[in-house]
C-alpha cells in the first residue's frame, strides 16, 4: 500500500472497525439538483460508515429500475461530474455547518469519467476529499494497464466487484489488486432486483468467507432492511444499501429525521 492510501479515510475506517459497517448509496442530483450535501450530512449525522454517491449516467446497465430512474431525473435536473465536484468542494471544511468526515465513494460509469479526463477526475477527487470510486464497466485488466498509476498518485481507491459467478482464481486476482474493500454482489443481478437472502446466497457468502481474503468485504444488491443487513454482516464486514434508500428518499424526503429513521430501520 502506498503512503497516500494509508491516509485514505476508507482504509483508516477498516483499520478501526471491521463489523456491521453500513455503506449507503444515493444518486447525486436526486430528488433535486442541490440535495447532494443535504443527504450527505443527513447520512453522516445518522452514523453511516461510508457514503457512496452515484454519478448519474444515461445508460447505467448494471443498475435496476429504481437507480436507473433516479439517474434519469438527476440528469434532467442538470447534474454532471463537474457540478458534483462543485457541490462537494468545501464539504470537508466547516464553512457551512458540520464538516463532512465520513468516507466518500463515487460510483458511476466509465464514459463520463473518460470525457472528464481520468487524471483530471482523480485530481478533483483528491481536491474535494473523495476517497474512492466504483466504476463497474471499467474492467480490471484495463484499469491496471492504463489507469492504476494515476489513481495511486492521487490516493484514490478503485473498488472492484465480485459475483457468485466469479471464479476462485479471479477472486484471488481481484483481492491481490484491490485496496480498501471488495464489493460482493450478493447474487446474479442488477441493483434493486432481488429481495431477501436465499440459501444459494448463504452458500456463496460462506464460500467467500472461507477464502480468508486480505481485503474486507461489503455485500451489496438486495440489502434493503434490518434482516438482510444482519445476514450480510454475519458473513462480511458489512453491507451496502442503494435502491431501498432511493425509494425512501422519493417517499419520505431528504430531511435529517427522514434519513435517520431509514438508517435506524436498517441498523436495529
Amino acid at each position: 500500500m502506498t503512503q497516500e492510501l494509508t491516509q485514505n479515510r476508507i482504509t483508516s475506517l477498516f483499520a478501526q472497525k471491521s463489523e456491521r459497517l453500513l455503506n449507503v448509496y444515493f444518486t447525486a442530483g436526486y430528488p433535486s439538483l442541490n440535495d447532494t450535501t443535504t443527504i450527505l450530512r443527513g447520512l453522516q449525522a445518522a452514523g453511516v460508515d461510508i457514503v457512496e454517491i452515484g454519478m448519474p449516467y444515461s445508460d447505467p446497465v448494471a443498475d435496476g429500475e429504481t437507480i436507473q430512474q433516479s439517474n434519469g431525473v438527476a440528469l434532467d435536473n442538470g447534474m454532471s461530474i463537474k457540478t458534483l465536484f462543485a457541490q462537494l468542494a468545501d464539504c470537508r471544511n466547516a464553512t457551512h455547518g458540520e464538516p463532512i468526515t465520513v468516507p466518500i465513494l463515487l460510483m458511476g460509469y466509465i464514459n463520463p469519467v473518460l470525457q472528464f479526463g481520468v487524471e483530471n477526475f482523480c485530481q478533483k477527487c483528491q481536491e474535494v476529499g473523495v476517497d474512492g470510486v466504483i466504476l463497474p464497466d471499467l474492467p480490471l485488466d484495463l484499469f491496471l494497464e492504463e489507469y492504476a498509476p494515476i489513481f495511486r498518485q492521487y490516493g484514490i481507491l478503485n473498488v472492484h466487484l465480485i459475483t457468485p459467478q466469479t471464479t476462485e482464481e479471479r477472486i484471488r486476482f481481484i483481492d491481490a489488486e484491490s485496496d480498501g474493500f471488495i464489493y460482493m454482489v450478493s447474487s446474479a443481478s442488477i441493483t434493486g432486483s432481488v429481495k431477501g437472502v436465499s440459501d444459494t446466497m448463504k452458500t456463496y457468502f460462506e464460500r467467500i468467507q472461507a477464502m480468508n481474503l486480505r481485503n474486507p468485504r461489503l455485500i451489496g444488491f438486495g440489502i434493503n432492511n434490518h434482516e438482510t443487513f444482519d445476514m450480510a454482516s454475519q458473513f462480511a464486514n458489512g453491507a451496502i444499501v442503494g435502491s431501498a434508500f432511493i425509494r425512501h428518499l422519493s417517499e419520505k424526503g431528504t430531511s435529517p429525521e427522514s434519513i435517520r429513521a431509514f438508517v435506524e430501520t436498517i441498523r436495529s
Partner: protein
Amino acid sequence: MQTTLEPQTSFEVSNKGFYGHFGGAFIPEMLYPNVEELRQNYLNIIADPAFQAEFWQLLEEYVGRPTPLFLAKRLSAHIGATIYLKREDLCHTGAHKINNTIGQILVAQRLGKKRIVAETGAGQHGVATATVCALMGLECIVYMGSIDMERQKPNVDRMRMLGAKVVPATSGSQTLKDATNEAMRHWINNPVDTHYIIGSVVGPHPYPDMVARFQSVISEEVKKQLLAKTGSENPDYMVACVGGGSNAAGAFFHYLNEPTVRLVAAEAAGQGISTGHSAATTALGKPGVLHGSRTILMQTEDGQVTEPYSISAGLDYPGIGPLHAHLFESGRGDFYAITDDEALQAGFQLSKLEGIIPALETAHALAALEKMNLNANDVVVVCLSGRGDKDLSTYSKFL
C-alpha cells in the same frame, strides 16, 4: 469460411479485442464470466468441422444462400456506373440478420445454453433470432424499444407468432440503445443458462468479431460471383449502410485488405447532421464507451449518450461497431451521411427502376450512390441488406 478464421491484418481484431483504438470489453464484473466463456470458446467452436458443416447446410437449405448478385441495369444507367446488388433481402426473414443468428444459435447450443435473449431495433434481428430459436426449440426473449414496437408492429407480430416473448424497453429514448441496455440487464440476471445474441458488430469483445465472421459470408460470395460475371473478384466500391454495422462488416470483410476496393458506409443523417435529429455517428460523435466497447459515440460534453434519430429504426443507434470506428479513423472507409428524405427518394427510385422495394436502412446505402461521383467504368456492389415490406407504413406516407 476456413479462410476467414486466421487473423491476418490490422483490420482484424487483436487478441485483446481491439481494432486500432476501438473495441475491448468494457463490462461490469457481473458479465465477465459470460463474456469470458464466449471469448475462450468461440474460435474453437466456429473452427470445428461439425459446426462448419451444420452452419453451411443451414445457410444453404434454410436461409437460401448463396443470395444472388444482381446487375441492376436501369439503376446503373441512371447512376452512370455498373451497379450490382447483393440480394441479402432474399434471405429467409428478409434481411442479412439471419446469417448471424444461425451462427450464434449453434454457438449457444454448443455452450449448453437453454435460453436466448436479444435486442432489436427495426425488428429484423428480433425476427431472425425468434426464427432460429423456433428452429432449434430454445426459449427466446426479445427486448425492443416501445417506440420501435409501435413503428415496426408487423415484426412484433412475427416474433410473437414464432413463439418469442417481446418485452418493451421503456427507458431512455425507448429505441435500440435502450433495448440493448435491457437485454444486457437480462443477461446479468440470468448468467448461467442464457446466451445473448447481439444483432450487430457492437458490444464487448468477442461479439464484434464473431458477428463479422458470421456475416462475412456476404463478401465471400460476392468475390466468387463477381469473378464469374466480370473476371475480377474486386469491385471499385463496396457500399453498405451502417447503424451498428453488421451488413457492412460482412460486405467489407474479405475486402479489408484490398486497398483498391473503396469501402463506403452510409450513415443516417436523420433530418440533417446539424438539426439535432440525427444518427450520423462519425459526423457527430467522438471516442467513448458504449455497450461494452470503445467506439465513436454520439454524446454530450459530459459523456452522456445522446438520443439518436433516424426514420429508419435499424440505423437509430448512437454508436457504430468498433471495426467501423477504426475504418473511419484510419481513412480506410468513406462515410456518407444520408438524410431521411434522400433515403426515401432512393427507396422509391429502386422500387420503380428495378422492381425491388428496399428496407429503409438499405435505402441509405442506395442514396450514397448519388454522392460518390462515380465514373462510367466504375464497378460498384451495394449490399441490399433487407427488403422493405416492414417499412410500408412509412413509405406509404410519401406515396
